[in-house]
């Protein structure tokens, strides 16, 4: 509802400034309705998950009344907490590495003309095309061949490998059609290559990097198949825990966990919003 109002408002303002803006802002009702509809559909399973986390019954098909038991069970579950920490650490480290490797790779390749560029950019996206399970098995073989001890280290390598393509694809797509004149102007004015990268190129890439990070974080945070092969005896990961728990029976404990994670994410979003607003007002 809010979207609608602000946009209408914006519409009116724009119309005052510019008489013709029909292309962008005409007929706004349908798009807004469409966006809301699809978003609501995407949230249906989530809402049900949250709802059933308060189910007293262990079996999800029976509603046994409201209860917080599963939150208590979850709170006492040491393994889940450890696994959650490990998974966050893993997802963040591999995203971080993937951002650096993927972005630098995409930018570098757009600047140089080497016949290997095409080949490497094709190959670097291959992990997306190989079924996860065989990738996991192959990693298992390769890592043991290299003598790497199975654990967080091997996990980070494996996850970085399949996170890079997301960053690489997103950033490359963004680089095409980016205005080169700004960059040239900066160079003409004597900015160093590094300076140009950080001041001119990077800011333009930020949306693409962000989409890439959001996707690869989600992929890493959700990966079971590859992780199960490359993890070591001491590293428990959340998706593996969830997966193996779901295998033996859908316990509402998992729903409770999903609910809490959802709540924390939303809280963080709100918090950052608030911080952002405060910064803005203090600056002005």
């Amino acid at each position, binding site marked *: 509802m809010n979207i609608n109002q602000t946009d209408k408002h914006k519409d009116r303002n724009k119309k005052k400034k510019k008489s013709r803006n029909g292309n962008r802002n005409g007929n706004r009702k349908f798009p807004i309705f469409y966006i809301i509809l699809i978003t609501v559909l995407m949230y249906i399973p989530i809402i049900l998950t949250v709802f059933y986390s308060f189910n007293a019954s262990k079996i999800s098909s029976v509603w046994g009344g409201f209860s917080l038991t599963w939150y208590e069970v979850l709170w006492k579950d040491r393994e889940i907490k450890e696994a959650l920490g490990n998974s966050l650490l893993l997802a963040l480290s591999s995203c971080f590495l993937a951002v650096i490797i993927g972005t630098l790779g995409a930018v570098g390749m757009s600047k140089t003309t080497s016949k290997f560029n095409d080949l490497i950019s094709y190959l670097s996206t291959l992990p997306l095309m190989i079924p996860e399970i065989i990738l996991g098995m192959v990693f298992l073989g390769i890592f043991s061949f290299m003598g790497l001890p199975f654990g967080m280290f091997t996990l980070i390598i494996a996850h970085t490998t399949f996170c890079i393509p997301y960053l690489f694809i997103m950033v490359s797509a963004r680089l095409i059609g980016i205005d080169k004149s700004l960059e040239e102007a900066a160079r003409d004015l004597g900015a160093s290559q590094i300076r140009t990268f950080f001041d001119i190129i990077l800011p333009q890439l930020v949306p693409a990097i962000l989409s890439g990070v959001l996707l690869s974080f989600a992929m890493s945070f959700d990966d079971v198949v590859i992780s199960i092969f490359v993890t070591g005896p*001491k590293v*428990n990961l959340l998706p593996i825990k969830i997966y193996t728990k779901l295998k033996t029976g859908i316990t509402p404990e998992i729903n409770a966990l999903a609910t809490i994670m959802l709540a924390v994410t939303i809280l963080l979003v709100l918090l950052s919003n608030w911080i952002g607003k405060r910064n803005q007002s203090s600056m002005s």
Partner: protein
Amino acid sequence: MKKIAAILLGIMMVAGVLTGCGKNTTNDENGANQTTQEAAQTAEATAESTDSNTTALSGELNLYTWDGMFPQEVLDGFEEETGVKINYSNFDYDEDMLAKLEETKGGDYDLVIADDYIIELAIKEGLVQKLNKEQIPNFGNINPLFQSQFYDATNEYTVPYGSGIPLIVYDKEAVGFEIKSYEDLWNPALEDNLAIVGNYRVIDGITLKTLGESFNTEDLDTIQKAGDKLLELAPNIRLISDSNTQDYIVSGEVSAAFLYTSQVTQALEANPDLSVCYPSEGLGFGIMAGFIPSQAPNADAANAFLNYILQPEVSAKCFESIGYYCTTKAAEEFISPELKDTLVVPDTVTEGEIIQNISQEAEDLHSEIWKKFQEACD
């Protein structure tokens, strides 16, 4: 952009706190454990005169099995008693575990609990070490029915931990007749109303049983004959699933289901009105067992853990929690009366046949038959 950066930062902080927490608690526990460990050792040294072989335990026990195989209190109890920290990690398929053991040459893990047939292979591959029975004085508590099986004929490598028989569970009212045999699953009255587990050796196996054959026949013609018959079951199949199959019968998605034991237990727990059929053609049964990989970093702890879970009371707790048939004879009397019927099985259980490893050709044929069957179901 600042906002997003702030979110990411926030997430990072949470991650830091959590992992920090995890580490702190483990450190604390280690610290606390050390003291309890010393206490336990002195206690053992004084109290247990029968067990002269008590070696000082320390370090960590890397336990590798499916999720939910031990109640938390049992794991905690062992940690408290011995001061060993348990790292419980999970695999999905037995074969994933085998792959991991092969690649680490039997290292990394101290104790594995897996299915009978895969243990046979692991032993064959030299990935399993013999138990140190001096460290397992409770070895005698095991129900001998579940010992001396094909995978470990001399009982040198394994401690059985749970046994199961896949059974048919059904809603008599919805089905409209009494299911007495595997054969009855072919009844057209069950159209689009049957859920089965997804293990092809099991499903092909019961088809072989309806023809009066063994699960483990290696005769390709016989297997093919069973395969043809299996195709006729397709119209009845609503879904095939290895996990949570019990949920579908409880929710009423299907009116009959062919389930693993732990699933049977869960289904009956959720809805005691469901009927169970012990098929007349003969039962199939399987055993899960614990073994110690050949290069286990802490085999002492593994032996001690096996000994720990063989204590009658502890064992009873375990089986009540996992819902498989109790393989510890001495534990039977400690199992709560309401679960006794489902968890303690009569001696006749071993008249059932175990699914064993068969020749490659036969195995491949089973797999092909299964694929055709799945396609026919669609």
